């Protein structure tokens, strides 16, 4: 049993790990600053100008509503994609016939560029939030489909027979055997789809003028306002980083503990003093 104290210590260590990420990002900001010094504000505004612009935009109340709108569209599309892709994938994994039917279609869907879906959804749904949701759904579903199919297909029959022989309750079988196995297949795909859904959402918004962060970017482009454009990009990047480090990475650590570290992979150092 892990004590609360140990949990807290673990959480502190995880948060503390943010310093390493911050160091890496700050080096990128240094490169950005050097680029600004070389090419000027019109090409690349300085980081400080950009942060200041972002701060002003936030105070003006323009950032938060856009973030909410984009996140809502992206999340609805993503969840739809996970449900549709996951359900069809599970079907394809259970039945060979369904696999023969669905797998080529999923491959085809995966091959259609996201930008083509944007154009189609704009033609079908016009410049509304629905266009964004549809584009995100249709691009994330095939990703989830493939991994769900593979996860179900590779469920170990021997393990199931053993569980039956030992009269393992159904709940335990699902919870302790099937679920961890499925997660190890599904999680990477779902994580990729989640990160992708934000980018697709912003792209669709930019072209459709449906509001959200993408719309802000489009306006900045029309006004040739590089500072504002960079500020909006920062918003997207901050959202993606927040999802990665506050949601996905902690989940990954919790769910996939067993594949984290191999014993013996630790420092093989020279003797000390």
């Amino acid at each position, binding site marked *: 049993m892990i004590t609360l104290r140990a949990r807290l210590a673990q959480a502190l260590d995880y948060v503390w790990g943010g310093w*390493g990420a911050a*160091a890496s990002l700050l080096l990128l900001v240094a490169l950005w*600053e050097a680029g600004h010094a070389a090419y000027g504000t019109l090409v690349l505004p300085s980081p400080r100008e950009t942060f200041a612009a972002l701060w002003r935009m936030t105070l003006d109340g323009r950032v938060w509503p856009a973030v909410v709108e984009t996140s809502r569209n992206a999340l609805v599309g993503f969840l739809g994609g996970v449900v549709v892709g996951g359900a069809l994938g599970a079907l394809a994994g259970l039945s060979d016939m369904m696999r023969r039917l669905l797998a080529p279609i999923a491959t085809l869907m995966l091959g259609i560029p996201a930008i083509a879906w944007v154009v189609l959804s704009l033609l079908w749904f016009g410049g509304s939030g629905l266009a964004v949701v549809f584009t995100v759904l249709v691009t994330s579903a095939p990703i989830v489909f493939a991994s769900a199919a593979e996860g179900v297909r590779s469920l170990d029959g021997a393990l199931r027979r053993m569980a039956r022989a030992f009269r393992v309750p159904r709940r335990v079988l699902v919870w302790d055997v099937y679920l961890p196995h499925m997660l190890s297949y599904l999680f990477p795909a779902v994580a990729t789809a989640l990160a992708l859904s934000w980018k697709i959402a912003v792209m669709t918004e930019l072209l459709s003028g449906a509001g959200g962060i993408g719309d802000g970017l489009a306006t900045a482009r029309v006004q040739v306002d590089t500072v504002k454009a960079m500020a909006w990009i920062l918003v997207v990047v901050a959202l993606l980083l927040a999802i990665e480090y506050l949601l996905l990475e902690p989940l990954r650590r919790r769910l996939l503990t067993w594949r984290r570290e191999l014993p013996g992979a630790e420092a093989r150092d*020279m003797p000390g003093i």
Partner: protein
Amino acid sequence: MRPPGEQSRAGGVVLAYAFRPFFLLVPVAAVAAVLPLPVIWTGLVGAGTVGSAAWHAHEQVFGCLAAAMAGFALTAFPSWTGTPPVTGRRLAALVLVWLAGRIAFWLDGILPASLVALADLAFLPAVFGSALPALATATRRPVDLGLVMIGVLAANVWFHMTRLGAMPGTPDAAVVLGLDLMLVAIALALGRILPVTLGAALHETGQKGPPRLSPGRRHFAAATLVLFAIADTVAPRDPVTGWIALAAACAQLDRMVELHRGAALWRPQVLLFYLAQGFMAAGLAGLGAAGLGAPFDPTGLRHLLGMGAASLTVVTVMSVVSLRHTGRGFPLPRAVWIAPALIVAATVARVAVPEIAPEAMPMLGVVLPSALWAGGFLAWLAVFGPWLLAPRVDGKPG
């Protein structure tokens, strides 16, 4: 193997291993490097070829820290590489070269400037020269530390060349480069020291498991410091340097997580390194903020790096090495806390006073920290000096 009776007993003991003479001299050098400061700040001006600030910084970096590095490296290399240590007459010669450099630099303005440069620059090449023959045959060479020390030597060459007007730049910039590179050396050396001290601390506090230190974190921390040293020299007040300093600060903070090991963190051999890392991060972060326009005094922040980070690490390493290489085992004596406490107090005074009360600078910002600093190093000498002067307690040579 000296024939008995050829040298006096105390001399023989002191020259039995490199850490003994150099760790006895580090406190002397540390005190000497601040001794003239109160005089200078209260009116009497030095008459050398460099300003008083550059003189003081040079003595701290290329005098005091260099002696500590030499004592540490010449003691640690033999155990890392399996080569014979430098002892006896050769060690005595090294100590004399170091002393000649210090005396020459004290007499700067009286002796010819080029002679001062030669005397001061001789030390690090002499250390390399004494260690190279053995290292040439060793299989595992600490190349990284060697390269950084060559960089430190280059910084000192640059210092003297600017003083003599033979190279562009200022002595102050050269000494800053020297300190930046010393921080790199410390970051690298900690990778070898921490497994030992953290392991001992875990053992003392009854915890199981290996020290678990990742080489990746250490290399990242050192690499950002190298980048900072370069940027700090090429474009000292540029915002790019500011961001790099902030990145380096974060990389040092990132490293500190490895010491979060419950009760083991509170053992002196871990907590003092942890504090020093914190000072390094604070100094780098402050310099970064100053580079991006924050109204901090950069000279004060350099003291966070020199006093807080470098000296605190040096004092702790000296304590640990003196303990282990005189045949003693952990735990460290309680008196180990005295010197670090005084040095931390000195650092806080030196850094905080110019920010809070600039008008009180001569007394509270210079005289008080100098006294605390000198007191700290003399306290270290009082606690550990007797160990350095006595033979190993287990009767082994060294």
